[in-house]
């Protein structure tokens, strides 16, 4: 078990390195560099060149990468090309709201998907099953932004019961209830997505388990059907779900970009959009890198969780 975790960690390292390399390459591909940003067009070419050397931009790519990478290890993501603030700081300030948004949606989404998926599988081809499956298809087929706009139209503009933007009321104290009210609509949108994807996943996983021989063994023992399902089937069906949760994280990040834009949620997604609009590549790349690292860590966590719920892992490898 311990070895297994270490092994997963060791696999994560080259992936992490790869992520930084890809990140660096994209950054280099981006038009404009910090020098252009710092200096006005009137600056003589010689001075420009001097500045380039000073910033190390004349060095071969791998040297530049190394210098960037060692800074990275010290937690230094460089400075924004637009606001000149440290990128790390900017991201850190925005991380909380995004994690709040993503975390809430993930938990609620899964809390809906698991029982509904299991029930749907147990009553395959029933009305409930059709409703759940159709609902889950809707969840993955409605564009985030359209659902978001629709919600704003209904709840903010028409019924006027929910705030349409930000994380707290301007001038308000940002109390729990206030944040909660602001949270409702963006969370509904992301939850629709999470639940939509996972209802069908839980359902098909459960359907597969329902055909397993060991359930027949459990029934042959004379166990009640509820026990057969709850004790013997559900646990096995949920094991693969653990992995899928890890895959939700990058998707949620993507969703957050769109949702935060619509609801003016002061998180990473909004920062991403504003950086892209202002071509602030050092911030963009910092964001991208951070998101990738979070994804890798989340995958690592799901791997460990997997090992905890599935006793088979302990023995293999």
């Amino acid at each position: 078990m311990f070895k297994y975790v270490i092994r997963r960690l060791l696999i994560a390292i080259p992936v992490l390195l790869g992520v930084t390399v890809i990140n660096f390459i994209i950054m280099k591909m981006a038009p404009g560099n910090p020098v252009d940003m710092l200096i006005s067009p009137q600056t003589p070419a010689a001075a420009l060149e001097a500045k380039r050397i000073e910033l190390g931009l004349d060095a071969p790519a791998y040297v530049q990468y190394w210098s960037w990478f060692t800074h990275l290890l010290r937690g230094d993501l460089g400075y924004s090309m637009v606001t000149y603030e440290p990128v790390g700081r900017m991201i850190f300030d925005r991380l909380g709201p995004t994690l709040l948004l993503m975390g809430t949606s993930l938990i609620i989404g899964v809390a809906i998907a698991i029982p509904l998926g299991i029930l749907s599988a147990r009553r395959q081809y029933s009305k409930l099953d059709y409703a759940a499956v159709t609902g889950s298809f809707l969840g993955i087929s409605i564009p985030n932004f359209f659902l978001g706009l629709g919600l704003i139209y209904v709840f903010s503009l028409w019924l006027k019961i929910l705030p349409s933007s930000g994380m707290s009321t301007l001038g308000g104290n940002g109390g729990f209830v206030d944040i909660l009210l602001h949270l409702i609509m963006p969370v509904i949108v992301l939850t629709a997505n999470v639940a939509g994807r996972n209802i069908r996943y839980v359902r098909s996983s459960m359907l597969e388990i329902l055909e397993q021989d060991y359930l027949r063994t459990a029934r042959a023992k004379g166990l009640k059907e509820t026990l057969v399902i709850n004790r013997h089937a559900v646990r096995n069906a949920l094991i693969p779900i653990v992995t899928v949760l890890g895959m939700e994280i990058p998707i949620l990040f993507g969703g957050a970009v769109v949702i935060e834009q619509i609801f003016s949620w002061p998180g990473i997604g909004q920062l991403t959009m504003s950086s892209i609009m202002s071509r602030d590549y050092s911030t963009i790349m910092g964001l991208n890198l951070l998101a990738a690292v979070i994804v890798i860590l989340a995958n690592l966590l799901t791997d460990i969780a997997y090992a905890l719920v599935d006793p088979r892992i302990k023995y293999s490898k």
Partner: protein
Amino acid sequence: MSEMNELLKVDHLRVAFDSDRGGTVGVDDVSFRVMPGETLAIVGESGSGKSVTALSIMRLLGGNSRVEEGRIMFDGRDLLELDDPGMRSIRGNQISMIFQEPMTSLNPVLSIGFQMREAIMLHMGQSKKEAHATAIRMLEKVGLPRPEKMMNEYPFALSGGMRQRVMIAMALSCKPKLLIADEPTTALDVTVQAQIMTLMQELCREAGAAILLITHDLGVVAEMADRVVVMYAGQVVEEADVFELFEQPKHPYTQGLLKSIPRIDAANDEQLESIPGAVPARYESIPGCRFTNRCPYATDRCAKEMPLLSATGEDHFTRCWEVRRAENGLREEEDSHA
């Protein structure tokens, strides 16, 4: 033959399936009895309906199949008439079952101990602690090393043979009157097969439990059974005492089967006679005998009229027009085995 004290009596059982192409009949007009303490073997090839028959007794058929006709009398009660709680009190308690695939028949994420205790606590009313002790005793009985430690193991740490021993321990832990064993050794090696079969027989004899052994292997039948039921294409074609069946098989299918198995005690230059052809694809729609297309003795009547399973000797039943014709002095239709 006294019909008074039979343990299990299956009577004109008919099971139908829903498939993509509509309903089909998997098992049709299957009847047989199991006496207390005896070993009855049901032998047949894949698709002959032997497993379906076993699962119908346990009422464990899948969702797309159902018993359409017949009775399954166990200890004087019709299992098909029981309500769910009633049936559950029989499963694992009075009738238990072990399956073909030891690798997939145990739940991979629950410990052996947990799975062992479950039935014991349910049917014997034992506390967790008592059940634990009972489980260990059973594991010991089936010859597993270090049973205490085994209780904490998970199935994948065990070999196929060991898992099947666990299944046997589990099945016999509530002292059933009948053990249904569906191809219990097909997935195992020959030497392990011999061990498992011996173990099963010894423990059942000791506990006075009858065995309903489902198998395709005539060698296993010869070693284990007291009586044999031969199934072909969803029907019973012959039933007899094991010695009688092997010495004087009457149904052409049984005869062909016995001649087509390569035996280790055969003479050197013996030539195997195989049964030509294969089981017809949609046999349920055949009006006559389902073996007609492969039978060397088939007549026009065989193709048109379905023969009934009828007495063709003392405690010997055969489903064949030609055999009936040969056995002179037979009464007509009404002597069907019922």
